[in-house]
């Protein structure tokens, strides 16, 4: 079953079109990697799927319901079902890690008893191995810790879909591999759907069930990881072979 469907999607800033005529589906409980070169529109696609950038044309469907980007109610329904891990974590700097993770619960479920909330936050921080740092502020955490903390915040309300914008970006290989393991474990344990923007090939090989390859705002490939290796598209082949030009001879 598909949890997200995109049809004829064009997204841009002013008259500049970043994404052109995209159409694809994202199945539930699947980890979809969105890959492509820098500036190809990966993060723009992620923000559109997360309801932050209204498309110029086309539709996004979440759990079969069309997302109306002009309707607060429609966006609120979308936001209730998703979590987002931003590129640099985007933890609020004036709140401790504990309060950051508790924030979505406090805002969306104001009546949540403090004792239960404490357990929820404790569980999530344990899952990302940050329970010892709960009282620290984001400025006191390393890059990897901030990303794990942001992941804990993104999943605290058990969203159906978690969007991750370059989770491995700027991290060392060990921390990056740990984060990959964490995403896989969360997907298996909580039956979550992940959409991960990345250009880390090693990470894609390890975690992706499905791959979307973008190039200059167009979708070049929509398929399983195995399809990447059998693709005839010169860009897809050169991208995954890590060559500088598109010549695959």
């Amino acid at each position: 079953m598909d949890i997200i469907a995109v049809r004829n999607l064009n997204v841009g800033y002013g008259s500049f079109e970043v994404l052109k005529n995209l159409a694809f589906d994202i199945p539930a409980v699947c980890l979809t990697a969105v890959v492509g070169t820098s500036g190809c529109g990966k993060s723009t696609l992620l923000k559109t799927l997360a309801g932050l950038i209204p498309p110029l044309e086309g539709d996004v469907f979440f759990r079969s319901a069309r997302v109306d980007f002009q309707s607060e109610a429609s966006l609120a329904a979308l936001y209730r079902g998703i979590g987002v891990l931003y590129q640099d974590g985007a933890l609020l700097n004036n709140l401790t890690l504990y309060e950051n993770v508790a924030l979505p619960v406090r805002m969306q479920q104001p009546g949540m008893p403090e004792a239960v909330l404490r357990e929820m936050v404790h569980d999530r921080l344990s899952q990302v191995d940050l329970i010892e740092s709960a009282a620290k502020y984001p400025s006191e955490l390393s890059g990897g810790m901030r990303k794990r903390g942001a992941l804990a915040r993104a999943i605290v309300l058990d969203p159906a879909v978690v969007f991750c914008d370059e989770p491995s970006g700027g991290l060392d290989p060990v921390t990056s591999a740990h984060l990959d393991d964490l995403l896989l474990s969360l997907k298996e344990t909580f039956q979550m759907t992940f959409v991960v923007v990345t250009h880390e090939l090693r990470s894609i090989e390890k975690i992706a069930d499905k791959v979307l390859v973008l190039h200059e705002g167009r979708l070049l490939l929509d398929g399983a990881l195995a399809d990447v290796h059998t693709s005839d598209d010169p860009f897809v082949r050169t991208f995954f072979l890590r060559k500088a030009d598109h010549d695959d001879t």
Partner: protein
Amino acid sequence: MDENGPSVIPLPRRLRAADIPAAFKEIQAGREEGPVTVDFRGVEDFDSSALALLSYLQACTSDVRVVNISETLDHSFRTFLGGTPPAACPGPDLDLPTRALHSLSNRFLAQMRAVGKFFVLLGDEIYYTFSYITKRKGVYPGEVWNQLFFMSYKSYPITCLLVFLVGVTIALTSAAQLKLYGADIYLADLIGYGMLRELVPLMVGIILAGKVGASIAAELSTMSVLEEVDALKTMGVVPEKFLMVPRLLAVTLAVPFLVVLADAVGIGGGILVARFSLGIAPSSFLREMRTAVDLGDFFIGLEKSIVFGWAVVVGSGYKGLTVGRSAAEVGRATTESVVLSISLIILIDCIFAIILYY
């Protein structure tokens, strides 16, 4: 244009970056007369800027023809720029008045859009504030008190110091003039009326713009750049409510505290000058001041100050929330927030003056 066809512009043997401006100027001058043919026959010594010029000229198909491109130049062009589409040909430059008109109209439209966005934010803030007061949802618990602490306790020393100095300065300047006419005692009326109704509200507003407004704009714009505002949205939180309502409520509560203190120290400065410069006893000063001002004047000053405080918070919040994505814009938003806040304060003060005195 030549009677026999397009004028031919031969390019020099050496066509490097330093030679391009002269060649380009000659070509553009020719295009103003009509179609031109640019002859590359003589070009032997060239760099990538010559290739860029060739790319540009090839895009200007309507009035430029390029001829006699040597094999070497053509090979270099295909090697370096073969895959790059030429930039759109802008044609000959527009004349100065047309360019000025374009620029002015674009700026005017951008300003009008900005004014529209500001009023939309203002309307939203009024709605969100009443919605929070009635439903108590959408704002982080305790944030109003944090902001109140920053706006009142952290702001009162500088407010008192500056208002005291302004009180002393105004009293000294006025005392010298009043002494000439033997009207020394009226210094009390002048200081009381001026401080309560005009100077304290303005000073409190300007200090809030510099201290609180700049801080709000810097904080919110940094949050925008670091995607924290986007993060709030995807958590189902309305950033305009979550971030702005506590500040609006805090400034509403902080301003009366600051105004009472500022009124006291401003008048205190006047009393000191009256005592030591004119020899007027503090009791006489206060007795005379009470004949000129009453509680109504205090409340007019207070109302003005609260409205100035709202203007500072909304103006700075607007600048902070409409920032772009680069770190450099944080500084720009902060500076602009102070300018906008002070402009709003003076505009509102003028409106108050028209309502109260006209």
